[in-house]
């Protein structure tokens, strides 16, 4: 980060010395913090092998964890595929010229974006009479509805981001509407949308952890099985955290790479969660656009939250 910012000038020799001192103090502070953490862990017997970390080096438990990871990934993959389909349909629906198509699409998208995912999942599960073997479906359907609604906004904004002249030229060539959409607008929009889609994958993957509440198969439910047996709550939760972190950081990195590779740092921001009005969304896009020009080539920001 050598680019200049609005906040401070290029440092002179005195400022540089000051920065080095602050830097050194921070490092010392972090080391002390790390020491305190490790010490607290050790004092409370959290660093012992037996009964705490043992399950995570035992093949049988690693297998269970691996199974949980596969279930989690399965849920995330189904959710993303479903959400993409949902997003395309409702994103295009929201752009329809017909009010009777546009309006219901708008309502559905706004509703599922505004409602907490967890109550949606619990409700869906209750429709299955709370059957345990249906909890996976409830989780995946919930994820599809929520992430699909967010992606619908992404698609709509992505299509709107393609310069208007493109569609006009295609119509002038005599193309029909579905041809304009399918062969002109969508291919260009997808390129702009890719980073947003990848950050939505992170959101979906994080949200698979909600399966915990309805006992859906997946990492968090497996975690509950492990600590039920060993009582090693902290160690188990930390292992789950690390697994999620590793996958998400890889996805994050992939998103940035795609962003650099395919969009030249241009980024579409429709990660606004909830029911923001058109005006706010526009303003947010402006902020994001402004940020991009200010920190050209800086690191991209992932989607807001899940």
């Amino acid at each position, binding site marked *: 980060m050598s680019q200049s*910012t609005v*906040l401070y000038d290029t440092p002179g020799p005195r400022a540089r010395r000051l920065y080095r001192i602050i*830097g050194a103090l921070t490092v010392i502070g972090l080391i002390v913090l790390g020491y305190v953490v490790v010490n607290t862990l050790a004092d409370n017997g959290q660093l012992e092998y037996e009964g705490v970390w043992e399950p995570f080096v035992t093949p049988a438990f690693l297998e269970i964890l691996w199974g949980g990871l596969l279930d989690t990934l399965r849920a995330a993959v189904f959710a993303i595929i479903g959400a993409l389909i949902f997003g395309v349909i409702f994103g295009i629906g929201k752009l329809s010229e017909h009010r009777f198509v546009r309006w219901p699409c708008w309502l559905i998208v706004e509703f599922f974006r*505004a409602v907490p995912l967890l109550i949606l999942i*619990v409700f869906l599960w209750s429709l299955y009479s709370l059957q345990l073997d249906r909890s996976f479906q409830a989780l995946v359907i919930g994820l599809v509805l929520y992430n699909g609604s967010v992606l619908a906004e992404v698609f709509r904004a992505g299509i709107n981001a393609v310069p208007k002249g493109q569609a006009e030229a295609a119509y002038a060539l005599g193309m029909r509407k579905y041809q304009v959409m399918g062969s002109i607008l969508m291919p260009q929009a997808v390129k702009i949308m890719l980073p947003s889609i990848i950050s939505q994958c992170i959101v979906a993957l994080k949200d698979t*952890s909600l399966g915990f509440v309805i006992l859906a198969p997946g990492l968090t439910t497996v975690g509950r099985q492990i600590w039920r047996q060993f009582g090693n709550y902290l160690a188990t939760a930390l292992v789950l*955290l690390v697994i999620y*972190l590793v996958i998400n950081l890889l996805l994050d990195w992939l998103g940035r790479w795609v962003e650099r590779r395919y969009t030249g740092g241009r980024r579409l921001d429709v*990660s606004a969660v*909830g029911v923001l009005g058109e005006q706010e969304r526009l303003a947010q896009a402006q902020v994001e656009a402004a940020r991009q020009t200010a920190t050209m080539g800086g690191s991209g920001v992932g989607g807001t939250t899940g």
Partner: protein
Amino acid sequence: MDALTENWDIILEGFLKTLQLLVGAGALALVVGTVIAMFRVSPVPVLRRTGAVYVAIFRNSPLLVLLLITYYGLPQLGINPSFYWKIVLAMGLYTAAFVAESLRSGINGIPLGQAEASRSLGFTFGQSMTQVVLPQAFRNVVPPLASVFIALTKNTSLAMSFGIAEAAFRMKGLINDYAADRWTIFIGIALGYIIIVEAISLGAALLERRWRAER
């Protein structure tokens, strides 16, 4: 409808708890998030790196797993705050990462020329900060911060699985008791959340309009 009308008092109580969580976690997130954002825009490389690591970790962790750590994990270290604080701690630290990102983008969104112009007018660092940079930064930050708080509102529902009787918890209980009415219960509770969410985005829109008029 009976399920809602007969139980409106516990539903209201549930939403009160939701708001309590929102306020507690929101305040913590604002404080920690502001510190992290200052780290991230500071001229000291170590601080910038620290802020970046914080954001990367908390933005990519599932909130539920963080809640597992504070709720079940902290007591194992002999740290035993009340239920409410355990939930607020995880939600606040998680949300802080997003607050920090919003603030940072708001500050970085100001064109460099603004600072250059104020410097060339002879403003000191303090003057250009308070007169030129920060007022614009606040305005830039309103819409993204509003979406962070909207997301937090929805995330408070996760407290349900940790024995906090907030709105989502009440919904689950009511669905168990009045299985036939589950559609009404769901729509009713959902509307409650939508009202909170709309209130936040309305507030943000008003703030923005007011600040825009001063431009």
